[in-house]
């Protein structure tokens, strides 16, 4: 594929691409920096302070504990719900409530139990909810923090993919190129493929620097925690899926660049879609299943969930809102991405084949 090679070379002759790579490294650096305080184990002074505070609380408890428990039990008895549990038997202060904890590289076991995020999967619920809750992407962790930055590398790939075609359209260099290679379909495929494959270094380097940097940070501070073989497999899987998503984002960028012609329009359109699907997520209700952000997350993290609110008015006219949790699988997320790439690419190909170039 001679054309593909040429386009790849052109991609990496561009300053935008190198700038993107630099930016990816910068973002990775920021990610590592921002994780420093979380990864640092508690210092001796912090521990001493915590112990001192615990001692004070214990002292108070010994004096007033019985009154507090009695008051608690009284309120519990007053509650119209007979099943109400105010936890009055667990009011005695414990040292671990006060000890500062370090975030580990992968979530600590107690962070991964279903329900720690406030959502208790009920009996009838999808078993995948618990699975998602127990994955390394839920709860606080170093790798989770790294994962938050992954989207930034996808955006970089997208923007580089957009400008790869809009720049040559506005400079007119595309016209010159087409007088050398007039087979438009081939030209388009070579551009789309070069942008998908050529921007991978941005995603790979950015992600490796972020995840590797944060891991190193935890290793240095001795707060890696226990990383199981399964965890490593999940991290590797995430990385592979991220790279695939990067290629998809770049291809989408190239297609939008051809369809909308101007970089500002293409980037703006993508930004509006993403912003709307985040800002108004809940108003989409069950249709959240089709939001791009939801599907992208599902693909990356091996499945995701979203909540749908349902208002029920009872006979007395009291409205209760019940939240149900729905799951989007990684498979759906992947197919969704693939479909978006396919539809936009085909549309762009048709436009590119037919359009007048000046």
């Amino acid at each position, binding site marked *: 594929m*001679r*054309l593909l*090679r*040429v386009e790849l*070379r*052109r991609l990496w*002759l*561009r*300053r935008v691409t190198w700038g993107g790579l630099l930016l990816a490294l910068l973002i990775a650096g920021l990610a590592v920096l921002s994780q420093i305080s979380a990864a640092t184990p508690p210092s001796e002074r912090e521990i001493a302070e915590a112990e001192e505070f615990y001692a004070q609380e214990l002292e108070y408890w010994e004096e007033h504990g019985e009154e507090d428990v009695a008051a608690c039990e009284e309120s519990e008895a007053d509650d119209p719900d007979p099943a109400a549990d105010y936890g009055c038997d667990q009011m005695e202060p414990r040292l671990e409530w006060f000890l500062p904890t370090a975030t580990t590289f992968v979530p600590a076991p107690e962070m991964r139990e279903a329900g720690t995020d406030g959502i208790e999967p009920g009996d009838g619920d999808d078993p995948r909810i618990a699975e998602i809750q127990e994955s390394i992407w839920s709860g606080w962790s170093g790798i989770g923090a790294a994962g938050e930055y992954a989207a930034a590398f996808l955006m970089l790939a997208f923007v580089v993919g957009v400008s790869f075609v809009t*720049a*040559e359209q506005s*400079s*007119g*260099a595309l*016209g*010159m*190129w*087409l*007088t*050398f*290679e*007039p*087979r438009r379909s081939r030209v388009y495929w070579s551009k789309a493929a070069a942008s998908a494959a050529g921007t991978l270094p941005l995603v790979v380097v950015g992600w490796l620097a972020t995840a590797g940097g944060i891991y190193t940070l935890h290793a240095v501070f001795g707060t890696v925690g226990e990383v199981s073989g399964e965890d490593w497999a999940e991290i590797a899987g995430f990385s592979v899926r991220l790279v695939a998503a990067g290629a998809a984002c770049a291809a989408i960028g190239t297609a939008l660049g051809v369809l909308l012609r101007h970089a500002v329009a293409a980037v703006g359109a993508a930004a509006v879609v993403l912003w709307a699907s985040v800002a108004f997520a809940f108003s989409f209700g069950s249709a959240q299943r089709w939001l791009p952000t939801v599907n992208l997350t599902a693909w990356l993290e091996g499945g995701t969930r979203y909540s749908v609110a349902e208002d029920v008015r009872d006979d007395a006219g009291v409205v209760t809102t019940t939240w149900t949790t729905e799951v989007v699988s990684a498979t759906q997320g992947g197919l969704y991405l693939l479909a978006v790439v396919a539809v936009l690419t085909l549309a762009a190909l048709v436009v590119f084949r*037919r359009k*007048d*170039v*000046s």
Partner: protein
Amino acid sequence: MPTADGELAIETRGLRKTYRSVRGRRVGVEGLDLQVPVGGVHGFLGPNGSGKTTTIRMLLGLVRPDRGTASIFGHDVPRHLPDVVGRVGAIVESPKFFPAFSARANLRLLADGIGAPRERVDAVIDQVGLSGRAKDRYRTYSLGMKQRLAIAATLLKDPDLLIFDEPTNGLDPAGIHEIRRTMRGLGDQGKTVLVSSHILAEVEQIADTVSIVARGRLVASGSVAELIGGQGGPAVRVGLAADDVAIATSLLTSRGLVVRREDDALLVDGADAATVNRMLGEQGVWAGELTVRRADLESVFLGLTQHEVPGGRDHRGGRRRRKEEARDTTSGAGAASGPGAAVASTTMGEDA
């Protein structure tokens, strides 16, 4: 005007292109029939907005015609353009390379794209005299250097057909001269050069054949000699003292010459200056001024493009000459003194 074996470098039939936008439709080319013979320089003339660039874009597959057919060396374009594109080098309007890349990087991409050897890149850069600046960003180039780089790019292919769209726009006289020489040289090598221009003087000197378009249609075509010939032979302009005009008129008319009055001068058609001078002198009438006026392509051009006849094929349309449409030249000297002067004398305004 096909060559002996009938081959045409370019042929279009009923080519039509309408640009559509939110503001409406604009006809770019309106049923153009163009024939460019193989070999030599062919001028593609027309005022601004007459559809020259649009035609060239359609030939190169950059713009899709609404109707009509076009072929290059007998290959239908744009359908079979890939078969013939290697034989065509073209610069449409101003050269457009990647502005942030160096000249060499730009040409290397193009060379790699068509599978030309890398050594060709430095060779063609050298050929157009840009070796010293090959590493500079294209954006930093002067207009003349951009044109030269564009020519270098077309030479990467070693094409048989070269298309230059207004190649001297914005160049200084030296640059214009250089481009003209290059085009003439390519024509002399047996290549076909199509050069579009709204400046007649630019093409007149180097073109073997010309096509003149106005408002998207062909209004005249043929060899330069044919087109000028259609305007009648040379005339002699005789400047006289006011008293002598009447005498001279009867004198020359009596000798069978066709004489027209033009202010204080007479225009004598189809005679040479020496004969006219002798006839008058023998009778004691002395001309104060004697100039040979040759019909030139410019008058044809102006006549055709300003008084365009609907249908566009009536070559006689140029007959209605106006005074300023003919250019006085001293006997023998065919061109204006310098390229700059020529440009200034014939630049035309928007036609559309």
